[in-house]
């Protein structure tokens, strides 16, 4: 990919990657550092990376760096805390969104990552598998289990309300 392709990647994928990292880590500074390092690596290997695969490359790099960071810091626990800017979301009602955020935080790291990659970025099972190092079947099963858990949580909250 050329320098222009790289800049196009920055414009198109920086927000999504930052969102993914922020939702995964819950830390603004960590998310920024991960995004920065992912794009630096893309720039270094831009000649070997096809422009059409650049998004998957970025998320793969960021995901593995996030895993390394979690291991290094001894914390894989992701907090439910999110910046205020996330509150201005679109889609469901704020109440339902808040319940969903709570449900998402109850998932384990792998399930949450797969759900975010699927819902936020629209990746297919194969693409998610290439990013996370899983095969498509494992992604499918893990995602389905995560959906069942989310549905159960939403039903339970609905019953409480």
């Amino acid at each position, binding site marked *: 990919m050329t320098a222009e392709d790289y800049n196009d990647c920055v414009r198109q994928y920086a927000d999504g990657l930052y969102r993914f990292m922020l939702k995964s880590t819950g830390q603004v500074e960590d998310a920024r550092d991960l995004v920065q390092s992912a794009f630096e690596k893309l720039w270094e290997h831009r000649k070997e990376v096809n422009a059409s695969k650049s998004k998957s490359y970025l998320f793969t790099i960021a995901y593995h760096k996030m895993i390394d960071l979690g291991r290094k810091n001894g914390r894989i626990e992701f907090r439910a805390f999110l910046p205020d800017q996330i509150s201005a*979301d679109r889609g469901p009602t704020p109440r339902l*969104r808040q319940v969903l955020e709570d449900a998402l935080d109850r998932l384990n790291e792998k399930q949450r990552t797969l759900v975010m990659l699927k819902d936020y970025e629209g990746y297919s099972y194969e693409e998610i598998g290439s990013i996370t190092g899983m095969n498509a079947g494992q992604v499918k099963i893990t995602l389905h289990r995560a959906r069942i858990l989310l549905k159960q949580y939403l039903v339970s909250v609905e019953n409480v309300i």
Partner: protein
Amino acid sequence: MNITRNNYEEYFLLSIDRELSADEQEALESFVRRHPDLEKELDRLKQTVNFPPEIIFDNKNSLLREVKKRGFLPVYWIRIAASLIILLAGALILLIIIPSKNISHGQTADRIIKPARDKNQIKKSSPGMIADEVKNAVRGEDSGPAVKSDHAVNSDHTVKSDYVVKAASGMIADQVRNPATDQVKNQASDLKKNQVDYAKANPHSSNQDATQISNGETNEKNQQSIALGSVLGNTNKPLQLPDLAKETALPSTINHQPSTISSTVLPSTVQPSTVNRQPPTNAPDESTSILVFDNKSKAVTGFLRKLLPRSSGDDVVSGSHQKKISVSIFQFSMSKQ
């Protein structure tokens, strides 16, 4: 695809994950319509889909890299073009300079037989007037069909170049020696005698050269060349000198001397051996004479232009392209004693 009550959940999840094809999606919707009790379960699964929050990475500019714009042409093409331009410019300069040098040298060889005077002498006797008249005369006469085109160019050079003007002025010797202009020769002989007499009578006059006929100084103050010219062009008429010398009985001064050539004046590339003197032939004489009379200083400025054959007699017969121009300038000035 066969959707049943036993496997519908998998297809519901695949539908939520947008992993079904259009046909599979249509089959699923058909199944839901047949089993409305399962529709609510599908809606609850749809609620598990998260929408991406509006999060913006505000440090995007720090990630952007500078893109080097490509030039209109690659660098090596620019270098090649620059080299070609330099080569063409050099070739053009050579084409301009070398022919002009050749013209100058050829002109010198053809025309300079014995330059008459040094530079100071030319400036004394001809304050710009002679050169202008030579230029006008030559330009006017060169339109004739018998003159080769390069002669006109040479004539221009004669006018423009101070050195060549001097050389042209020295051609009076050939003109005088030419049998075709015997009358001119006779008159020149008479003048020579007058000059010698005058030299004897004025031993203190400036003697610039041992062989100079006249050592009479030109009176620069009286040399205001306002005058009167007569063009006798394209005729065989000999030089018609005014009889002022006889009328006033004053010695005439010929300010040029063919034998007073200074070796330092000649360009280094011109050797005396290269001078090509052509013997007189029977070709028709197409000489032109111009006389300018300065009424104030009682001076006569003369210009002689003669077409001479360049090489053998065959050349003369073969055509006019083999002729050359011989230009001579002289001046008579008279002063009262």
